[in-house]
């Protein structure tokens, strides 16, 4: 189990028992990693029925409703979300391909994908069950989550901390400053509240992260 997984695994009971301390740097980092991981998962694939149930239940449901992923008590079907995910990010036409190369070069597998493959060599992990292009936004979010998770495991005085910090700044600049037009378009084009919220949330989250990593 990687460090980030270990970190996140401890979150479940903490969150369920509401023993979170959002003033604590540790919990803040954990939450940030969690956010990257959550977004990565939601960007990389359709929401499974089981995950949808979890997202809608209890405290979690309230938090997601607060971010307008859905209205409290609203019936949402994984099949409708899958169709919306498809028309938004998979196609077959008029979609908004979530690949950096497309938005920067008008083509698949361009410079950004090559760069992502290089970064991918730092961490080979079967993040996803599908063959997802290297410069897919979901992969980029996942990679950034790994960097933040790595950072969370070392002390700020540690030499590795500075290295993680450098890597984070470089990676964020190269691969997470591009998606604003994609996210704006996706928000406009989403047919479900869920994906409107996902696009908006991702945009807002990346904006806060941009401030942090600048």
């Amino acid at each position: 189990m990687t460090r980030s997984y270990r970190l996140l695994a401890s979150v479940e009971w903490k969150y369920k028992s509401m023993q979170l301390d959002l003033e604590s740097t540790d919990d803040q980092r954990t939450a940030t990693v969690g956010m990257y991981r959550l977004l990565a998962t939601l960007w990389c694939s359709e929401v499974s029925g089981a995950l949808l149930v979890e997202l809608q239940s209890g405290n979690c449901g309230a938090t997601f409703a607060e971010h307008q992923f859905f209205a409290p008590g609203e019936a949402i079907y994984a099949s409708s979300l899958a169709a919306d995910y498809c028309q938004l990010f998979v196609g077959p036409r008029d979609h908004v391909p979530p690949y950096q190369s497309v938005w920067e070069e008008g083509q698949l597998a361009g410079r950004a994908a090559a760069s992502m493959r290089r970064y991918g060599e730092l961490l080979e992990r079967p993040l996803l069950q599908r063959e997802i292009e290297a410069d897919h936004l979901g992969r980029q979010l996942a990679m950034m989550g790994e960097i933040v998770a790595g950072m969370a495991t070392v002390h700020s005085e540690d030499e590795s901390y500075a290295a993680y910090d450098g890597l984070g700044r470089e990676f964020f600049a190269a691969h997470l400053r591009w998606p604003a037009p994609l996210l704006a378009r996706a928000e406009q084009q989403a047919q479900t509240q869920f994906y409107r919220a996902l696009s908006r949330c991702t945009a807002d989250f990346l904006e806060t992260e941009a401030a942090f990593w600048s």
Partner: protein
Amino acid sequence: MRKQTPSRRRFLKLGLAGSAALAAVGWDRAAEAADGEPLPQGIDLEKWKKLKADPYAEGSAPMPGVCQLPGPLAKRNWPDRSKYEGAEKVPGMCQLCSTVCGIVGYVKEDRLLKIEGNPNDPNSRGHLCARGHAGLNHQYHPERLLYPLRRVGKRGEGKWKRISWEEALDEIAESLKKVRQSGHPEEFAFHQGRQRSKDAIKRFLDAFGTSTQLSHRSLCSGNRRAANLTMLWESDWDLNDVEHSRYILNFGSNAFEAHQGHVSFATRIQNGRFNNGAKLVTFDVRLSNTAGSSDEWFAPFPGTDGAIALAMGQAIFAAGLEDRDFIDQWTTVSADELKAHLQVYTPEWAEKVSGVPAGDIRRIALEFARAAPACTTMCNRGSSAHLNGFYNDRAIQLLNAIVGSVGKKGGWCWSPWGGVDPNMKTPPMPPSAKTWSVLEDPPEYPLANVWRRMRVGEIIYLYLLQDRAKLQVYMTYNLDSPLTWPEESLTRDVLTDEEKIGLHVCINCFYNETAHFADIVLPWTTYLERWDLDARGSYNLRPYVGLRTPMVEPLGEARDIRDFFPELAHKIGGGMEQWYAYGSTEDYLREWAQNVPVNPQTGKSGLDRLLEEGVWEDTNRSPFYEPYNIAVEPAEMVDARVDPQTQIISRSGRGIGIMTPSGPKRGFATPSRKLEIRSLFVERIGNNEDCTSEIARAGSKKTKNRPAVHAGHDVKIDPMPIWFQLDEHQDLAEDELIMTSFKWNVHNHGRTMNLKWLAEIVHSNPAWLNPQTAKRLGLQNGDWIEITSYQSEYLAEQSPHLAHRGPVSPEGRREVSRMRVPIVIMEGIHPRAIAMSNSCGHTQYTNVARAEKRPSPADILAGSDPQAYRDADWERNMWWEDTTGENPLTWQRNTGRGWNQNRLMPISPDPVTGQQAYHDTVVSIARIG
């Protein structure tokens, strides 16, 4: 007002909530490696430090961006040659048209940077056309299909969800199993557009047990092929030896822009002209690039090529320039008989029907004859795609026999090797399926399938509509039928109807007008990502073999049929799986290519040699010149019998040659062992007569009698090259014209309009009108007209099963459809013709093809940083966007996506061969506004 930056804290709760939800569904466990191996621990910082000098760092950009158009900053260093340093050169074969030129891909870190011609390719010799170079656009198009899709709305509604390959193949296998259980395997049809994986398709269909394989051959070359087969039997494809010619007579072929042998053929024509001073004369209703580059161009009345050719024959006889020896020895008519037959077809008569001056017809005929034997005709869709196209092409080919240039160096040649060198043997194939379907073998068209499976594709949807067949499973492959087949609306209606077509599985690289009506869409690899052995009839007149190999990994989850057919076969089971016991696709190719001999310089043979060189040609084999004159080996004469009347030599009941004054010769592979100018076979086969003895004399194993289900469908076929004109072409009203179609040098029929480098050059197809016509009808350049198309009266009489029910015009013509288009006025078109190119008018293909750039909100234009010059082409460089919504009032010249000519074209198969008569439709035009 500036938006407030959200606080990081806002997301902390969400991050934690999300993590908890993910953990609860076992996300942390799901992310473990599938094989239970421990996953790498976090980020390897040491590795990162080493990778920091990464060549893709922002700003340096030495390699990527290969599809970018050169921007203002890029111009300072463009083209940037350093980007090819260290690139691996991987051979392959282009597949953007059927010429299949050998290519070399420059690949660096799994990225294809550039495509160029492979100089080892004996046919294309290292040349590529514009389409070939634009393969990069095809490979990296932002709207490529990357995942299997399942329809979630109504068919044709355009609503989809992503599914896994496993789900997709399970569903397809279930449906195919049911087809088998139903006892009607023929109700599984495989419908291909351009395909170059013949063995893989045949293996799957034969293993399944269906022979309902549908193709587009009749849209393309049915008449030319049938005319060749009538004369030669062993080849449907004349390979004009233009490189060694001194005179090239072109009837309606646009070899410089399109044609099945495009690059290989066009470069040889030019070699013939520059090296031998060959003259190129073109007859074409339209000033194509080939016509424009010819020494002389004549625009005959549409469909009169055959009349001109027969008149030339008459003129050659009249001048005594015919090759009597060849005609008497090697053809089925004597020179005197032929002269008598041609007597009525005088140049003056031909002038009346074609408009080409008799003096020119006579002059050119004699020039052609004087250049013999190094002279050849060439033809293609221009002469073939007519309701009299079979006879047009027979007449054109006859000219070569009259002057004795048949099979001669510089003359009219052919080769029996139409594809991969026959020394390459595929791993064992299943026995051929023996089913029959009216869709694959319609009984009305006697020559469609008699020698080869040419099939009459344009009737498929009509016959389904008429309930003459139904399909339980319909698998389409690289096909765009609503765009490329006549009667677009009928095609769409039938594709929508779930009663007529059960499960529709579409295999393609892109979503298109066919995929739109599918139930499952499977993302196909591009020709730069898959394996094949491939070749086409070589102009070197000997066989060769080339390799198509994955230059880069497939993007997304794209897969080739070679990859997933074995899996599908295993899921279907019932014995199918036994034909896929060969291992991986590479193993299969290795076995197939094992007879490629060793290259003494490299020591490599078989697939290894092809992987290095791309192509292999057996240069020890002589070009296929004058095959009829090859002596029959004495060993073959043992036990042979010579028929005293016909002189035909046969062995074990099969013809092997003919006795001539100079001894036993191979002759032609026909029933008479001669070039069949008079073909009694076609006459008899048209009448459903038994031709077993003719077939045996020809020594043919492929040719078949018509099956019993053809009984009652007799068609009169003249045994001699003749010519007739359609009645409806002789009484055109003032506002009536004959529609013709054409292809540009940057497009193929239905698959290239999405390639931005090509679409930028040609993206629209206003109708061409001659100034005389425009003046007569009071039209100006840029005016919009409404075109009304009519069904052929000839066809209505010959083929009542095609009857239309549209309204009847004052001239008594039966209306098919209407369409509004703008016009361009130019001299380069016959005054009684109207021309529109195909390739245009997509409605479902990519944004580039549809010319819709869909602008971003103003403040977030992608690629707006002028320093980086990020070239988001579809956002900014697509200047030809169509915003008119088809409104003539807002239309601007040279913008848009054009119009699908097939909205107008009626289903119009030649009653003899089934070739779609794309160039005969009578239309009327009326100015709008």
